[in-house]
Each structure stands twice: as C-alpha cells, then as structure tokens.
C-alpha cells in the first residue's frame, strides 16, 4: 500500500503544517479583534443620531413656541428653547438643583440595589425549586403588570410619607423583572452545556457558579435593565406623590415649578430627569453589548 511507505515522522510533521495552514486559512477574513482605527468615524457614527434627535426636539419646541398655542406665548408662560436652555444653565449654576439631583440619585441607587438583592435572591430560590416556581411564576408576572403608582396609597398607609414608602414601591416595581430575568436565564441554559458540565464533574454550587450563572448572564442583564426602568419610574412617581419635608429632590423641584406655574423651570427639571435616564440606559446597553460581543452573539451591523 502506498501510504505505508512514507516514514511515520515525516507524515506527522507534514500533518502539523497542514493543520496550522488550515487554521490560518479558516481564520482569514475573520475579524478577531476590534478595529482600533477610524475612531473619528466611529464617534461620528455613534453621535449623529443623538445630535439629530436633540435637534428635532429643539425644533419641535421652537415650533410650539412660535405657534402661540392657546395664546400662552403672548402671556409669557411658554418660552422658546433659547430661553429654556438659559433657564437650565442658570439652575445648574446653583447648588439647589445639584443637591436635588444628589438626593434623587442616592434614593435611586439605594432602591435599585435593594430591588436587585431581593429580586436576585427570589429568582435564585424560585429557579431552583420547581414547585415554588410553578406557584410563584404567575405572582411574579402579575406583579409586573400592576402599575407601581397603584401601590402608593398602600405604601403611604404602611410607612407614612417617608423615603421607606418610596423604596418599598421601587422594590415592588423592579424586583419582579430582575427575578424574572434570572429565572429565564436559568431556564434557557443550553442542555448541551449542562451535559458537558456534568461529565466534567461540575455539581451543585460549582455547577451554578461556573455554568448556570454565567450562561444566564444575558437574560439577567435584560432583567436588570427592565428593572431599572421600573425603579426609575416608581421613584419619579414617588417623589411627586410622597412629599418629604426638608428632603430636596427632583420631584419636589418639579412640584414647586407646578405650584409656581413655571413651565420653563418644569421643562429644565424634565430635561435633567431625561438625561439621567438616558445615561443609565446607555450604561446598560454598553454592558449588554460587551457581554454579547465576548460571546460572539453580535452580527457585524450590531457591533458599531
């Protein structure tokens, strides 16, 4: 037979080269890392939709101002975007807005961390115990459909007009989403990976730590993001409804603007609330992108 004449060592040597050659051929044209060049172009690609969005909003504002809707421009109630932005700039020079932002963000962080802790613990327990999962699954979905603002009378009766009432409603709003995210992640751990993990000898806590939790991360992150949206809404509703004396917050500034018929001031606070929301949302989106990029779950168009 022809192939028996080739000495074994030569065969092994040529086989190594063949494998290395095949590897490099297969990886050619495969972008293995991120493009480091064209930073200016990438920045532009990322920035122009935001610039356009801001322009559209300001344009609509200007139109609303010029249309003199209800005759409010003539009375001086509605001001143009120029005057409005000047008002915001002016408020940003004073400590009052900043201490309000500080208080609101602190409450947001405390409430969100609480929701994260409670939601994650509940999610972890429920996903482990099937009968509990069957029983609580519909409760968790039910809680998610309940508008959080409906909880405020209950919270105020229970906790009084205090920060606790706001935190309570934030947790009720956000924790179910976070728990759900984790449960979904655990449910959708690929069975093949579980088989691979078990043959490797991963059991119990180790199986959880090295396989199930990392596998659930994308779904858990989605839950965290949705939870944040609920928490932030609940917080804004809470600050408008539960007025705590002596505790300056964005909600109180918004309330003051309403009481003073200060439309421009109200818009300034709304812009601040919007910006905080967008910043946090961006952080979640970036994290989500990073996780998906690491796992190769991105298509080329998404990786921008």
């Amino acid at each position, binding site marked *: 037979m022809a192939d028996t004449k080739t000495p074994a060592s030569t065969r092994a040597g040529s*086989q190594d080269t063949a*494998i290395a050659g095949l590897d490099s051929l297969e*990886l050619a044209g495969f972008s293995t890392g991120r493009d480091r060049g064209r930073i200016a172009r990438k920045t532009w690609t990322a920035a122009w939709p935001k610039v356009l969005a801001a322009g559209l909003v300001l344009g609509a504002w200007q139109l609303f101002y010029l249309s003199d809707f209800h005759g409010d421009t003539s009375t001086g109630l509605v001001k143009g975007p120029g005057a409005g932005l000047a008002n915001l700039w002016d408020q940003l020079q004073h400590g009052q807005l900043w201490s309000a932002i500080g208080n609101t963000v602190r409450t947001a962080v405390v409430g969100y961390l609480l929701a994260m802790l409670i939601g994650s613990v509940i999610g972890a327990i429920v996903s482990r115990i099937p009968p509990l999962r069957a029983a609580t699954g519909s409760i968790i979905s039910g809680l998610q459909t309940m508008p959080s603002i409906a909880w405020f009378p209950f919270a105020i009766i229970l906790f009084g007009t205090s920060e606790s009432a706001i935190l309570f409603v934030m947790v009720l709003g956000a924790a179910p989403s976070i728990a759900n995210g984790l449960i979904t992640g655990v449910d959708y751990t690929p069975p093949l*990976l579980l088989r691979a993990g078990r*043959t490797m000898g991963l059991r119990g806590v180790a199986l959880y730590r090295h396989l199930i939790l990392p596998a659930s991360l994308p779904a858990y992150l989605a839950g965290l993001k949705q939870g944040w949206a609920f928490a932030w809404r609940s917080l804004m509703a809470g600050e408008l409804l539960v007025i705590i004396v002596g505790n300056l917050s964005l909600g109180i500034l918004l309330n003051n603007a309403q009481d003073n018929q200060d439309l421009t001031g109200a818009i300034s606070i709304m812009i601040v609330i919007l910006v905080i929301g967008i910043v946090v949302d961006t952080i979640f989106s970036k994290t989500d992108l990073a996780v998906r990029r690491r*796992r*190769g*779950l991105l298509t080329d168009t998404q990786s921008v």
Partner: protein
Amino acid sequence: MSVVQRYRPDPGTAAQLNGGRPGRPAGDTAVSLSEISKVYGRGPNAVHAVDRLSLTVGQGEFVCIVGASGCGKSTLLSIVAGLDTPTAGQVDTGGRRVGIMFQEPALFPWLTARRNVELALRALKVPKEQRRRRATELLEAVHLGDFADKRPHELSGGMRQRVALARALAQEADVLLMDEPFGALDAMTRDLLHDELERICSQRSLSVLFVTHNVREAARLGDRVVLLSSRPGRVIEQYDVPRTGPRRIDSASVATLASQITDRLREEMRRHG
C-alpha cells in the same frame, strides 16, 4: 492486506480476540457492557432504544459503533458516561474516568479556549498554579497553543472541536466517548482531525468508543467496528481491523471494509422497510 471479519453472536469472546493484537495486554477490558437494555416510556408507547446489548472495549482499543438511525447509539454513550441509567444490565468501567465529546463542541462561550480547559481541571480539583500550565500543554497537544486566548466564536469549527478534545483529555479520562464528533465538519478538516485523534489516542493509550454514521470514518479509525441494528439497538456484526500500518480515508483496505459494512447495513435497513 485483508480485513478480518468475524461474526460473533457471543460478544464475551471479544476480549480473547483483542488479546491477539500486539501492544495490548490480553484480556484487559476498559469498558464492559453486559445485557444493557434501555426503555423509554412504558406500556404500549414504550420505546426500546437498546435491547440486551453486550459490548466490551479493550484497554487502548478504538471501537467504532455504526448503525442506522434509531440504533440507540447516543443512548449507549450516555449510559457509559453515567449521564443516563440503563433499564436493565450492567455497566463496568472499572473505576476509569470517562470523558465525552459531542457533535457540537459544547464549549462555554464566555470563556477563552484555555479557560474552558482550565475549568475541566478545576472540576478535578487540580491546584490553581498547575491549571494554567496543564491547559496550555493540552492545547499545544491539539496544535492550538497560539489560540489559547481566543473565545470559541473566534475559532473555526474544526478548532472548536479540538478545544473540546483538549477539554475531554483534561478530564484525565482513560476512556473517551465520542458522539459523532466530526459530523458537522467538512471532509478536509475531518481527515486532518482523524490523524490528530489517532496520534493522541495512541500516545495516551486511550480506550475509545466512537459513534458515527459515516461508515468510512469508522473503517478509517476503528480497531474494531461494531454494527448495531435499529429499534431496538443490538450488536449484529463486529469487524476486526488489524493494525498493519497507517491508514487513510482513501486507502484501499478502508474502502473494502467500508463497502462490506455498508452492504450489511443496507441489508439491515431493508429488514425495516
């Protein structure tokens, strides 16, 4: 060279026959299955996946299992791996560690190639300082030393399967179970991986149970090819392949054996038609 075909209604003689080959201790059995049955469901809907199947794999022997769909090949591997329990019968691996490879690489996508291998070592409680070194060695053994820090999605299909092989080897397995591991690869990559696998298995004197429905692949790789019937799975024929020298997928001897097995397999399928 010729291919020896033996019809063995009593698989108990397998160890005896294996003993005749050079380089293998006579009668040393790595895996022994006796009268294994597996039934899914019960009553009239019960499915007999495997029926009173007996099979042995000698120490260092490469056994290929071939069969048409529904012969319970995958069930069989799950049982040997301890992922599934047989309805009846005995499995004995003599306390050997069993590693398994699937058709999909089943790598953890959030870990680099090296970390994937390290995790298997960690599950074995290998001390931290040694893990990295051993993982690197294993990846070099499958010619992936330069790609240790790549994540699975950055590698080609063949490379992923090699990482999966390195991971299976990291489990210090004496017995390697392979469930159509090259089924999803192109022919050229598969050829190269056959050579790789042959080299690694003989270096480490692994006992292998290799499931495939590619008859040529079985003839190329196996020391013995076991043909299973379908629904329920039973051993219907065993073919011994003497080790006379390097084999290739296009060797004449491989082709001869492959066509013999294919004929027998067709006969078996007609029985169901």
